[in-house]
């Protein structure tokens, strides 16, 4: 059958000559190839002692941000949870009480905010959805753990450290 591109390469199968049939020259060639690799620098990165360089827009672990006065930005609007394609985010909203003004920026805040890191696909849609610039995926790689329940990160792990007064 005529090929569509009209390109063809006729392959000729030649019988092996004596040196090729003797295996040994080919084996010596193979040995020299592996010996070249013996002296090459290993490509291994010994994580976690050594870390690969991340790109600037690398999306790692989430962090819940504070504003310039150290108040939590999140208002528990739920847009992040709504936008999350993996349904990894859940939250419970609560009303800010008197005397808590220095903790939360708006009248409503997230009393519970949980992200299931096993569900999260690190797509970054939550940070795009957030109207308050409260969540960013600017952290490190999520560390390994033994139990599934330990991968549900609460506010204790997600909220940024308070500002130093």
């Amino acid at each position, binding site marked *: 059958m005529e090929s569509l591109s009209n390109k063809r390469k006729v392959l000729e199968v030649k019988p092996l000559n004596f040196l090729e049939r003797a295996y040994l020259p080919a084996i010596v060639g193979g040995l020299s190839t592996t010996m070249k690799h013996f002296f090459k620098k*290993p490509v291994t990165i010994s994580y976690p002692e050594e870390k690969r360089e991340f790109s600037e827009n690398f999306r790692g672990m989430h962090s819940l941000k504070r504003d310039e006065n150290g108040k939590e930005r999140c208002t528990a609007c739920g847009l992040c949870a709504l936008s999350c394609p993996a349904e990894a985010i859940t939250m419970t909203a609560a009303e800010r009480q008197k005397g808590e003004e220095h903790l939360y920026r708006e009248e409503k805040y997230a009393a519970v905010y949980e992200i299931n890191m096993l569900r999260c696909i690190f797509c970054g849609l939550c940070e795009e959805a957030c109207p308050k610039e409260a969540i960013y995926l600017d952290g490190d790689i999520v560390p390994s753990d033994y139990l599934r329940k330990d991968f549900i990160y609460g506010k204790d792990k997600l909220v940024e450290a308070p500002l130093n007064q």
Partner: protein
Amino acid sequence: METTDLIFRIVLIVVIFAISLVVAMYSTYAERKVAAFFQDRIGPNRAGPWGILQPLADGGKMFLKEEIIPTNATGFLFIVGPSLAILTACIGSAVIPWGSAIAIGGHTFDLQVTDINVGVLYIFGVVSLGVYGIMIGGWASNNKYSLLGAIRAASQNISYEISMGLSIIALLMLTGTLSLKEIAEQQHGFAWNVWRQPLGFILFLVCAFAETNRSPFDLPECETELVGGYHTEYSSMKLGFYLFAEYINMFISSAVMATLYWGGYNYPFMDNFAAWAGPNPAAIFGVVVLFGKIFFSIFFFMWVRWTIPRFRYDQLMDLGWKILIPLAIANIVLTGVISTLLK
């Protein structure tokens, strides 16, 4: 036999036994490191500095693993298999001359456990016994994969023993003796047998790879076809013995190869060195040289393992019967003709 001689022999036996076990132990570590370097990796580096305690960790793990004897296995033979494998691997070292004689307090001691005048035959006997360990273990497991692995091991070893023996015959025509000590002494200085028997050496090398079940002839434990080969059903230290026996075999066959072809403990300008440093340091340096040769040979075994893919079974048989045996016979004829003409 004098008492001092007897004590020296016993000490030597213990030392050689310990050395072969330690070398086998660290061969497992070296194998992993060498494999890693050939594949641009780092290799084990967690247990101790550069991972040098890795063999101890592996050994400890082997000891602590659960001992499983399958219900349908033949209990007694199932245990005999690995024991025989490690026993035959260990006794091969008895006839290898580790160095020339050293003198301590007026006595001269040979650095060789026993110098029997049929040393080469002894080695061959021990090597052919080695296949029984694999055969019995594979059969006693009562498992198809084990049995197939064992059958492969048996037929492979028998096929390659023939060409190994034939390649040795050409060497023995030149040396005129079967004693390994005399063969080593004949290669004084730089008159190594490999210069006189290059083809014989290559044949012996290929057969040594096949006899130790090392890649590219590791068909008895070919994972992709036979799960684990003859040791599929083995666990705990019995599996450890099989793996260990392979490394001891590698060590012993490297030592035999060094003694037969690479001059054993001889090195160039050894007379000059002996005149300068005295006989005892020269003898000890000879032992070091022999071990250097052995270690290089072990490295070569590993180098080949991480380079060449495994042979197909029919190719293995073709190579053994149709190429190596005719070549070995041609080598004998050639050696005979040349040594007659040169006389």
